[in-house]
């Protein structure tokens, strides 16, 4: 257990040393300060009487619940897209650095198996992301709930979704990093898949316009690649308290991530360093 904790600790410290992660914490803190001090709600008998931004009264027809959900939804969306993209940018080099000669030799000479070493590293990256997202989304949820008295516990599930989709995309980094040791290729492919997922999200609108072969290819891509963009809708539903009608994009993305990790671990275990 100690060796596993050692690699977990090292990964957390390496991530913390990255300026992007520090920057994300700073931005999260600014968001929390904004929600704490710049956004003031006047709630009278459970209804929104008025709200002020930076001391100026803002006019709105929204109900108190709508306003709370809107704020939570904006923050969750930003955390999902910007947070995940930036976190991938800062975490991806960590995996290829792990494989550097003179570093991996030292790690593998410890009494730890390769799958454990990989698991410790991945757990460190996921752990850092979980702390970061919980700090931002959990903080916003708590502040908004206390201020408004509107408690939406389902919003907390969005934290898990954001971390899970980050984990899925980091699986691509692990697979390509173990295979090619190239940070650039890992990142380009990961961002490429996120970009492709924007098109895949329109599968129901696009496939009728395609030939039968094209539609089959598109459907295959939809079912096999991560549906990063489509999961935005799930995150949004959780933020607004709406029911999630379709978990398939999330589940299929998780399966894609599991395959990436399995293949990455297989390559990592077989490689010579």
């Amino acid at each position, binding site marked *: 257990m100690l060796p596993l904790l050692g690699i977990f600790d090292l990964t957390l*410290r390496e991530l913390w040393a990255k300026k992007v992660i520090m920057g994300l914490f700073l931005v999260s803190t600014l968001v929390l300060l904004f929600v704490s001090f710049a956004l003031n709600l006047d709630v009278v008998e459970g209804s929104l009487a008025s709200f002020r931004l930076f001391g100026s009264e803002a006019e709105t027809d929204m109900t108190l619940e709508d306003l709370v959900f809107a704020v939570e939804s904006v923050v969750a969306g930003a955390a999902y897209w910007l947070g995940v993209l930036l976190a991938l940018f800062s975490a991806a080099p960590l995996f290829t650095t792990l494989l550097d000669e003179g570093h991996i030799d030292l790690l593998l000479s410890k009494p730890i198996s390769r799958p454990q070493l990989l698991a410790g590293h991945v757990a460190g990256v996921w752990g850092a992301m979980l702390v970061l997202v919980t700090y931002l989304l959990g903080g916003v949820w708590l502040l908004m709930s206390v201020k408004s008295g509107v408690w939406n516990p389902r919003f907390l599930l969005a934290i898990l979704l954001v971390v899970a989709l980050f984990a899925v995309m980091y699986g691509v980094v692990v697979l390509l990093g173990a295979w090619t040791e190239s940070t650039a290729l890992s990142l380009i492919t990961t961002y490429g898949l996120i970009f492709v997922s924007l098109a895949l999200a329109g599968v129901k609108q696009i496939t009728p316009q395609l030939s039968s072969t094209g539609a089959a290819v598109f459907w295959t891509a939809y079912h096999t690649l991560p549906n990063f963009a489509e999961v935005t809708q799930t995150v949004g539903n959780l933020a607004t308290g709406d029911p999630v009608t379709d978990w398939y994009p999330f589940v299929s993305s998780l399966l894609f991530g599991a395959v990436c990790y399995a293949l990455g671990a297989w390559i990592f275990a077989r490689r010579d360093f």
Partner: protein
Amino acid sequence: MPSSPAVAVTDLSKTYHSGWIRQEHVQALDDVTLSVEPGTVFGLLGPNGAGKSTLVKILLGVVHASSGTAALFGTPSTNPAARRHIGFLPEDHHFPGFLSGERVLHIYGRMANVDAETRSARIPELLDRVGLAGRRASKVQSYSKGMMQRLGLAQALLGDPELLFLDEPTDGVDPVGRRDIRDLLVWLQEQGTTVFLNSHLLSEVEKVCDRIAILQDGAIVRQGSIHELTAVERVYDVVTTRIPPTVLENLGEALRPTEDGAPSDPSLSRYRVRADNRAALNAVLDRLRTANVEIESVRPLRQTLEDYFIDVVGGTSPPANGAPS
């Protein structure tokens, strides 16, 4: 003391494959067999590309063998448990630059299964031993090459290893530091630690190693004790008073004057005696005594390890007695 050899390698081979379309194969190790007994300081020598690093990496589970077996204290090297009592200092190692020297030891010590209490006790002691006590809180990125090497050595020693692998431990270290490391190796040997040393500095290997193996083109071409390997077969260094020319002439090829290292006493001269056996050596000495020549010293002639190594890798030295080739 464990009864199994510290290192046991049998018929070990490694072929690297590269390329997708036009595959290239490089045979890094070819049927290597060697054994290192516990408590010895073992030196692995060989020219660049001989396969030394590959052998060490297979022993540490960093590289997979193509065939054959490797074990540490009887446990296959593919099993992580084999590395439980191992210390390793790789060549050109690097630690995350943002960590302090002390933090590096805590993190890598934890990975080596060293508990917090032991780490807290041993880290200050080790930093002091390797001369980094004053820089323990400095970030590693501010360390010189020599300091990194010292830190790497402290990291390798932290788990109180029974077997220590050192790959070029004195690389980048100044002469004083080199002597310190040499003294440390001698101390480790006295403590019963087995040391597997991979170094290009043959003078150092000669000073600290009990046994060596020379690897060339992936195969062990010589192995044995330094004493056995560097002894020049049946040639003796003899210092005597001046030998009369007639005696010299009578002895012919068996005794020749040499210019190597003239004795400080001008009344003495140095000779080389070539004798096929002990009786022949004594016959030469008897002949000298009969001629009233006084004998100051008789010593078997030795090469330096460097001369021996160059002879071997250059292909001019025959296998020594008892040394597998």
